[in-house]
C-alpha cells in the first residue's frame, strides 16, 4: 500500500530510486544533489538496497563508471548538479550513442561564475543537445513519480536511451512536501526487471565504442536521434501506464487557467507552480489568461505543444537560463522556431527570470503579465528583476 508522508523531496527521490532496485549507483557529491546520494548510500550501508555504491572521485568518473556498469548489464543510477553536470558533458554524448539507459537526477543549479549553489536551468540548457531524454518536475510528488517512470522509459527496448530527470535545486529538492510513496510490490508491478540487449560478456563478445569513420558517423548519429524521437510515444505510454497504476496523470505538456485564453504563460519546472497561482488570481480578476507547462523537453513534444497553445494571441515564455549573445532564452528560441513561417503564429514575449536562485513571486508574475498585455515587452527578451543599483 502506498502511504502519504511529509518528506524532503530529495529523500523522496532517493526512495523512488531505491524502489527501482538499481544494481549500481555511481555518484560524486555536489550541492544541491547531495541529499539524494547520501540517502542512497545509507540504504546500501543498511542493506535496504542491494547495490554497488561507487563513491567516485569526480562527476566525470561518475558518468564514466555509470556507462561501464550499464554496458555490463546493470541498472544504473547517478545524480548531479551544475558544475558536476558540466564536468560530465563529454561523456553525456557517449551514453545515448551506446544506447545505455542510465537514469540521472539533475538538481538544477546555476553555472559558475560567479559561483552559485542556487537554482536556475543554465546547467541543463548547456546539455540540451547531448541526446538524452530530458524531463522537468514541478513538485515533489512528480519528482518521486517521474524518477520511477524514468527507468521504465529508458530501459524500454524501443528506447534504450539515458534519461535525465530535472528538479529545481533547493526550490524543489530541499522542500518538505506531502508525498504519496508507493510500496515495493506496487513498484514491482509497474517496473519490469531490466533485460539489456547487448552486454560486455566473455561468452558473447561485442565491441562497444568503435571508431566512427566519416562513412558511418552520420548514420550512427541519425540512428540514435531516431531512437530519441521514437521515445516520445513511449514516454506518453509509460506516463499513461503510471496513471493507471496510481491515478496520478501526467502529460508531456499540461495546460491550465482559462480555456481558450488569449494570453498564455509557458513555463518549465517548479516556477510553473508560482505561475499557476498567478494565473488563478488573474482569472479571478477577470483576465483572459492561461498557462502551458512543458514537462518533456527532449525530445520536444511539438504536436502536443502546438495543440496546447492553439488559438492564443500571445505567449509569455519564461526562461530560467540566459543564452548570452543569443537571440533569446533557450525555451523561447525553440518555440519561436516552431512558429516560423506560420500565419497563426502568436506574439512571443520572452522573459528570463529566476536566475541564480533569484526569487520570483506570484505578484511579480502578475506584473509580467500586465507588462506583456500592455505591449510593454518590445525586446527579444526581457531579463526580469535586474537591480539598477547593483
Amino acid at each position, binding site marked *: 500500500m502506498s502511504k502519504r508522508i511529509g518528506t524532503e523531496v530529495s529523500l523522496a527521490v532517493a526512495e523512488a530510486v531505491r524502489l527501482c532496485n538499481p*544494481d*549500481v549507483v*555511481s555518484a560524486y557529491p555536489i550541492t544541491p544533489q547531495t541529499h539524494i546520494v547520501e540517502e542512497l548510500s545509507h540504504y546500501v550501508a543498511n542493506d535496504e538496497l*542491494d*547495490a*554497488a555504491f*561507487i*563513491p*567516485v*572521485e*569526480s562527476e*566525470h*568518473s*561518475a558518468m*564514466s*563508471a*555509470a*556507462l*561501464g*556498469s*550499464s*554496458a*555490463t*548489464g*546493470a541498472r*544504473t543510477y547517478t545524480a548531479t548538479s551544475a558544475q558536476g553536470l558540466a564536468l560530465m558533458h*563529454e*561523456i553525456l554524448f*557517449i551514453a545515448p550513442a*551506446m544506447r545505455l539507459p542510465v537514469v540521472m537526477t539533475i538538481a538544477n543549479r546555476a553555472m559558475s561564475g560567479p559561483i552559485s549553489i542556487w537554482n536556475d536551468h543554465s546547467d541543463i540548457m548547456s546539455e540540451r543537445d547531448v541526446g538524452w531524454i530530458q524531463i522537468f518536475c514541478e513538485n515533489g510528488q512528480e519528482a518521486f513519480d517521474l524518477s520511477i517512470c524514468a527507468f521504465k522509459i529508458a530501459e524500454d527496448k524501443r528506447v534504450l536511451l539515458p534519461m535525465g530527470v530535472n528538479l529545481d535545486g533547493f526550490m524543489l529538492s530541499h522542500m518538505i512536501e506531502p508525498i504519496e510513496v508507493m510500496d515495493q510490490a506496487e513498484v514491482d508491478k509497474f517496473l519490469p526487471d531490466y533485460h539489456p540487449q547487448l*552486454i*560486455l*560478456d*566473455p*561468452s*558473447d*563478445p*561485442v*565491441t*562497444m*565504442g*568503435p*571508431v*566512427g*569513420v566519416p562513412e*558511418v558517423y552520420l548514420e*550512427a548519429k541519425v540512428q540514435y536521434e531516431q531512437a530519441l524521437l521514437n521515445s516520445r510515444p513511449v514516454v506518453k505510454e509509460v506516463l499513461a501506464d503510471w496513471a493507471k497504476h496510481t491515478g496520478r496523470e501526467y502529460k508531456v505538456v499540461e495546460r491550465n487557467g482559462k480555456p481558450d485564453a488569449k494570453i498564455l504563460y509557458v513555463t518549465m519546472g517548479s516556477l510553473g507552480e508560482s505561475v499557476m497561482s498567478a494565473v488563478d488570481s488573474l482569472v479571478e480578476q477577470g483576465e483572459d489568461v492561461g498557462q502551458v507547462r512543458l514537462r518533456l523537453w527532449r525530445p520536444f513534444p511539438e504536436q502536443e505543444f502546438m495543440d496546447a497553445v492553439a488559438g492564443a494571441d500571445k505567449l509569455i515564455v519564461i526562461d530560467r537560463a540566459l543564452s548570452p549573445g543569443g537571440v533569446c532564452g533557450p525555451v523561447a528560441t525553440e518555440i519561436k522556431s516552431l512558429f516560423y513561417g506560420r500565419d497563426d503564429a502568436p506574439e512571443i514575449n520572452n522573459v528570463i527570470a529566476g536566475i541564480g536562485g533569484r526569487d520570483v513571486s506570484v505578484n511579480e508574475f502578475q506584473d509580467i503579465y500586465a507588462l506583456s498585455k500592455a505591449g510593454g515587452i518590445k525586446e527579444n527578451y526581457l531579463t526580469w528583476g535586474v537591480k539598477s543599483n547593483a
Partner: protein
Amino acid sequence: MRNETDLSGYEKITAKTIPTECMISSGHRACQGCVEILAMGMVTKATGSNIIVANATGCMEIVTSPYPQSAWKVPWIHVAFENTAAVASGIEAALKVLERKGKRKGPLPKVIAFAGDGATADIGLQSLSGALERGHELIYVCLDNEAYMNTGVQRSSSTPFGAMTTTSPPGKVSKGQYSWKKNVAAIAAAHNVPYVATACPGYHMDLMNKVRKAMAAKGPAYLHVFATCPTGWGCKPEMGVELGRMAAKCGVFPLYEVENGVWRITKKFKKPIPVLDYLKVQRRFRHLAPEDVEDIQARVDKEYARLEALEAMSGGAPKDKDDDE
C-alpha cells in the same frame, strides 16, 4: 587500500606452458614495428579469454576498432580518453553486484584497462587514482610509448628528458623535453595496492608472469609497460623489441614489481650498458650533446640506486652475507 593478497599461488608461465592464443586478431592497423600492440597481445595471452577490456582513446583504440571491423575476440569497450579506470570500475562493480544478486552466471571475468601514457600519466591520472584507491579488482595496463603518438608525437609527462617531440622541439634555447619522466608506477604503488609492476615485451616471460600475478590479486593491479614506438621515436621498426631490452639494461626503464608493498627488481644486469648506447639509436635524442648524455646517465644512476634502496628497505632484496651473520 588495505587489502594485501597472497600472490604466491599465481599460475606461473614457463617456457613449456607459454600461452599462444592472443585475444587480438591479426589484420589490425598498427604501424610496422609497433611494440604497443605487441605488448597488449602479450598481456591478453597471459590473461586468457575470460576478460572484459576497457580501452582509452589512443592508438590502440583506433587501430583495433574501425567500425565495422574489430580486432577484439573478447568483450571490449571504449568510452573516452581520460576515464578508462572509471569505466573499468563501473564494469567491475557491476559484475560483482550482478553475481551477488544472481543476475549473471559463469566465472567472474577479470577487467583489464588499457591506456597509453598520456591517458595515464596526464589526463587520466585522477580516474586511475580513484580506481586504485577504491580497491576495484582490475588490472590497469599503461602502454607507455612516451608521448602522444596518436595525435602526432606531442610530449606527455611520461616523455623522457631530452626527447624531441612535436611540442618539445630542440631549438636555440631548448634541449627538447625539459622535465624528467613522471614515475607513475611509484604513484600507483603509493596507493598501497596489492600489485604494481613495470614490464617490457623484450622480456616476455617476465611480462606475462607479472600479468599472471596481477590476475591473482584480489584488488587493483597496475602494470606499466614500456612500448617502443618506432614511428615516434625515430628508430628502425625491427629495433622495437631490442630497444625495450636496452632501456632495461641501461637502467632508463628498470623492471621491477611491488608486491604488497615489497619492492623487487626482477631483472638485474651485472653489466649495465651505457645510456648512450640506448639513446644514440633513436632520432628523438640525436640533438643531445655529450654533456647532456652525461647528465642523463647521472640521473639514471641516481634513480636506480634509489630503486635498489627501496628494494632493500622493503625487504625485497635477498639479504647479503654480512646481514645474515
